[in-house]
Each structure stands twice: as structure tokens, then as C-alpha cells.
């Protein structure tokens, strides 16, 4: 497994990214952690319907976004709110879905971030298509496609890897192996030596990386992105990480895992080790630490302020986007709903 900074913050490999890259990464980690905490608090306050937290997986979230150019694409899962925010999308736009206002609140074309959705692995063939189309158009776009360990059992994961390999599509598949698909442990998803090993069957190079080590993730993903951009085809990266919190607020992890296991993973926290490393080298000063914390608080305040606003929703929008032009039947149904809404009670 690729690792550059271990859980104690010690450097254990060569080729560390430049200090300023790691500092930027650390700042993004602080923001991602704060976003996870803020969203969790909003759920407890009843202001957000549900939130699948990536707490503990922030290094994957940050690295996946950081290694991309503006013209590249990110294909997230529903757990990757922090990755989308790290890409530069306003968290309030991302949370539109979990807030229940619409299915997707940002513009995928403008942001080059595919819409989130809850089916597993189905976004992966889309990522291959975006990449293949880019190649046909002569563009050097790279697509970062995210999924979890559970998704590797879905057929679309395998079809996407196979298609990507056959067409040498510029796609990096990043599997965040956080050890659980809701309650079902990794051992019930796969008997393979690793999830990265699944690439062998498709002719896709697979790499396993410490998913809580931002330095190693940055190096591995940068290399995979460069390979894709060169036209050398897809890569499969398995990030060894852990879902510290419940699947969502509706989940009860005490039914399927013990606290000791969670505690062990808390010691491998991605922020902690990078903070120790950057502090020991002198790159991270108390002033910078305060600066990053301030930026995180500012972002959290922005999220809270937006979430306390009641956005007016127009029921007519239900009919507006089903087709580029509503069918006669949808126009009738829109008129029916409008009449119901203006007519008061029977």
C-alpha cells in the first residue's frame, strides 16, 4: 500500500508533494471536516433532512478535487459533498438535494461536476462516456469517478472499468474503501485480495493507497490523472479509509461494529497526521492554523445562514424539466395543479 506519512505524522516514503501543496491540502481538509460537522449539526437541528458524512474520508475528498484541472470532470457519489465543495461548488448548492428542494442544485456543465444520485456505481459508465467523448473531440479532459467499496459489487462498476479499458478512456476510478456499505462489511462485498486487484481482470492498473494520507493520495492520483491525460487509459485507485460516522443519521452503527474499531481508525485521522507533519516541519504556523480555522468558520456561517433561509419552491417546476418542452399531457397536469393551488380547499 502506498503511504508517505503514517498515522503518527512521520514521513515513511519518498517523493512527498511540495510543502505548499500539502499546506493547501491541509486547509482544504480543515474546510471539509468543518463542512461535515456543520451538515451533521444541521441534521440534528432538523434543518437538513439527511446527511451521509465523509468524516474520516476527507483526504480522499480533498485529493480527488485537488488533482483536477478546471476543464476536468468529477463524478461524485451521494457521500461526496465535501469533494464537490473542494472543487469550488458552493456547499449550499450541493445541499439542495439533501435539503429536499430539488434533486441537484448546481449546474453540472458549468461546474464540471456530475449530479449526485443514490444508485450505486451507475455514474461510472457516464464518466467513461464523458471521457470518451472528450477524446473524440480531441480534448485532453480527465474524469475522476468516485465510488465506495459497496459499489464495486455492482455490475456497472465492472462494465465501466471494462469499457474504460477497451476504449482507453481518460478516467480515474477512485474507490473510497470505507469498509462498510451501510452495515455490510467489506468481507461480504469481496473475497479478492484487494479492491485494486479487480483492475487486473480488465487490464486496468490498480493501486492501493492509504486513504487517510493526503500526501500519498495526491501523488498517486496525480500520476493516474497524468496517465489518463497522456492517453494511456484508465486507472483504478483503492483508498484505504474508514467511515467514522454512521451511514446517515437514520443508521445505528452499534448494531454492526464496535467502538473499539472506530477508535482505532480515529487514531489514523487524516487531519491529525498532516497537522503533526506540517507543524514538525514548521510549514504550519499557529497563525496559519488560525487563518484556516477562520476560513472554515466563515464557510460554516455561510452554510448556516443559507440553510436558515426558506427558499420559495414553485410547484410548477415539477413539470418544467421532464422534457425540454413539456408534453400536452404535462401542460394539462400543470394546469390542474395550478387550479388546485389557487382554488383553496374543497
Amino acid at each position, binding site marked *: 500500500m502506498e503511504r508517505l506519512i503514517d498515522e503518527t505524522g512521520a514521513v515513511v516514503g519518498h517523493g512527498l508533494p511540495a510543502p505548499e501543496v500539502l499546506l493547501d491540502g491541509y486547509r482544504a481538509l480543515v474546510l471539509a471536516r468543518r463542512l461535515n460537522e456543520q451538515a451533521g449539526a444541521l441534521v440534528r437541528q432538523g434543518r437538513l433532512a439527511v446527511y451521509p458524512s465523509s468524516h474520516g474520508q476527507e483526504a480522499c475528498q480533498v485529493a480527488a478535487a485537488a488533482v483536477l484541472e478546471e476543464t476536468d470532470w468529477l463524478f461524485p457519489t451521494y457521500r461526496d459533498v465535501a469533494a464537490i465543495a473542494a472543487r469550488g461548488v458552493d456547499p449550499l448548492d450541493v445541499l439542495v438535494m439533501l435539503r429536499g428542494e430539488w434533486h441537484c442544485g448546481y449546474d453540472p456543465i458549468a461546474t464540471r461536476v456530475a449530479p449526485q444520485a443514490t444508485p450505486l456505481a451507475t455514474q461510472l459508465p457516464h464518466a467513461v462516456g464523458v471521457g470518451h467523448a472528450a477524446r473524440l473531440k480531441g480534448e485532453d479532459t480527465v474524469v475522476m469517478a468516485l465510488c465506495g467499496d459497496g459499489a464495486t459489487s455492482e455490475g456497472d462498476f465492472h462494465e465501466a472499468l471494462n*469499457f474504460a479499458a477497451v476504449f482507453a478512456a481518460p478516467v480515474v476510478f477512485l474507490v473510497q474503501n470505507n469498509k462498510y456499505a451501510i452495515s455490510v462489511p467489506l468481507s461480504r462485498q469481496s473475497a479478492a485480495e484487494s479492491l485494486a486487484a479487480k483492475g487486473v481482470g480488465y487490464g486496468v492498473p490498480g493501486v492501493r493507497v492509504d486513504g487517510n494520507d493526503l500526501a500519498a493520495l495526491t501523488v498517486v492520483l496525480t500520476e493516474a490523472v497524468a496517465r489518463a491525460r497522456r492517453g494511456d487509459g484508465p486507472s483504478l485507485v483503492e483508498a484505504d479509509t474508514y467511515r467514522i460516522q454512521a451511514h446517515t443519521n437514520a443508521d445505528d452503527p452499534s448494531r454492526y461494529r464496535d467502538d473499539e474499531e472506530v477508535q482505532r481508525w480515529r487514531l489514523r485521522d487524516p487531519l491529525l497526521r498532516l497537522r503533526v507533519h506540517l507543524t514538525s516541519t514548521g510549514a504550519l504556523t499557529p497563525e496559519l492554523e488560525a487563518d484556516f480555522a477562520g476560513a472554515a468558520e466563515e464557510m460554516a456561517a455561510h452554510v448556516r445562514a443559507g440553510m436558515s433561509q426558506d427558499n420559495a419552491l414553485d410547484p410548477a417546476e415539477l413539470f418544467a424539466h421532464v422534457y425540454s418542452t413539456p408534453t400536452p*399531457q404535462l401542460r394539462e397536469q400543470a394546469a390542474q395543479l395550478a387550479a388546485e393551488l389557487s382554488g383553496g380547499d374543497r
Partner: protein
Amino acid sequence: MSEKPTMIQALNRALRDAMAADGSVVVFGEDVGALGGVFRVTDGLTAEFGESRCFDTPLAEAGIVGMAVGMAMNGMRPVVEMQFDAFAYPAFEQIISHVAKIGNRTRGRVRLPMVIRVPYGGGIGGVEHHCDSSEAYYAHTPGLLVVTPATNTDAYGLLRAAIEHPDPVVFLEPKKQYFTKEELDLHPVPPIGQAVVRREGSDATLIAYGPSVPVALAAAEQAAAEGRDLAVVDLRSIVPFDDETVTAAVRRTGRAVVVAEAPGFASVASEIAARVSERCFHHLEAPVRRVTGFDVPYPPPKLERHHLPGVDRILDAVDDLQWEVT
């Protein structure tokens, strides 16, 4: 062409003309390259436009449709072939959960101009999984357009219209008619969503689509010989549904029979019967009848003739339309 072209040739011509007109149109699927498709609908496209415009894929339908979604997201107009009706089912999740919904999910910011071609229906002596009438699955899903031609001219025109359309279209090709030779008129491109009256008649209206249209027309011929004047409406487009044309035709005659190959329970035929009953009740002299396939899995070749709606079964239904009370 000196000889009248087949529906396959009409579809092939539509693909070729669309690819020549628009460089973003790409065709892919299983066996569509060197072979030209198992029915030869894509014959010669790779040779003419190159491997990047018409290409074979791995044998995996979810992957094919999923890749088309991504290509449509990134500026292309993919036209994918599902080899047979039942071979499209592995792609069902992609079609239902994403093809149909991404436009709505993204508030119209991402439109998917893509066409999923599906040879469908029976009457060809095919083994199980080669003869399904799968239209109801797609028609039941908001966000998909579902069209099916009954003539070679419509096969050409509707496929051109489908490829040019900004929304995803499930294009159902009646494979029973693939080898039918007819004059091909390239000019009138019917807008998607418009039914057509194939035959005027004053006594009752037969409503049909795709492979059932020629059967309905044959039934109307025979009825004429027996002294009954039947109109025939060809839907062409199942979604959007042309209530106006259908309703007007039924009101003119006061009687209606819906003809379709698919099993009748919870079917497109049932939807049509319900719509016609709701909208034409005061014009109807008799309940709307459905003549459909039985509610059985598609039969083996030697029994399929008992399953498919034929002229006799349609005329029996017409006979039942309470003629004695008028």
C-alpha cells in the same frame, strides 16, 4: 434505389444522413461495426464515417447506455443499438434511473440528446427473448420519448427527428416489418408526438402502432369487404401521446378498438382505452375494446400465431361493438 427499399434500408439511410449532417452523431453497440448490425441497420457506417463514429462495444448493455449518457453530457448525440428487445433489459436501470431523469434532475441544465434503438415485437419465429413488446416499460417512465414507426417513410423520418431531438428517445423498430419494401419519401419529417390517420372510415376506429398497424389496415380491408367502414389511426409516437388526433378520430366514429401485440394487462393499449373512454364517453356507442397479446410470456415460434392479434380477432372485437343498439 431502383428497387423499393426495406425498412432496414430506410433506417440505415436515416443514420447515414444524420451522421453526414451532424458530426456529433455517433453510433455504437454490439455488432454494429464490421457486421453492420445483426439486422444490417448500421451497414456500411463504419466504412463511411470511420471507427470513431460507428463502433462496436463490449457486450454489456448497461455499459452501452451508460456510456451514451456520458457522451450526451459531453456534447455528442449517441445513437445506440440494443440488439433485441429483451437484450435491452440489462440497461434498464440506466434507462429508467438516469436517461429518463437527468434532464429533470438538473433542472434542464443537462439534456441528453440520445436515441436508444430497440428492434421489438414478434411474428418473426424468434426464440424466447427475441420477440418482446417492451414499450410499456418505457412509456411508463416520465422523461423518455417513445416512438415506433409503421412505414418505411416514418422509419426514416422519425429516426431523423429522434436523433435531432434534445431529449432521449426510445426508438422501437417493428422487426416484423424490417424486410417490408415500400416507397421511401425522405422529405416529410413527422414531428414526434403526432399520430396519423392511415385510413378514414365512418363506422369504428382501430388504434394501432408499430407492428400492429399493417394488421389493423388488413382488418379494415376485410371489414370493407364485409360492409363495415373502419378508420385506422397509427400513433407513431407513444410518448408524447397525440390525444387530439386519437380523440377526434374516435368521436367521428363512436366506436374504437385498440390493437397491440403486448400483453394487455397494464399495457399501452390499456392506457389508450382509458384515455379514449375518459375523453370520448359521450360519443361512444360501445365500450372501447382492446385486442392485445395474451398475458403470457412470449410463445415459442410454433405457437406465436395464436398469441398475436390477427385480422380475425380484430374483426371479432369490432363485431362486439354493440351494433344492434344503434
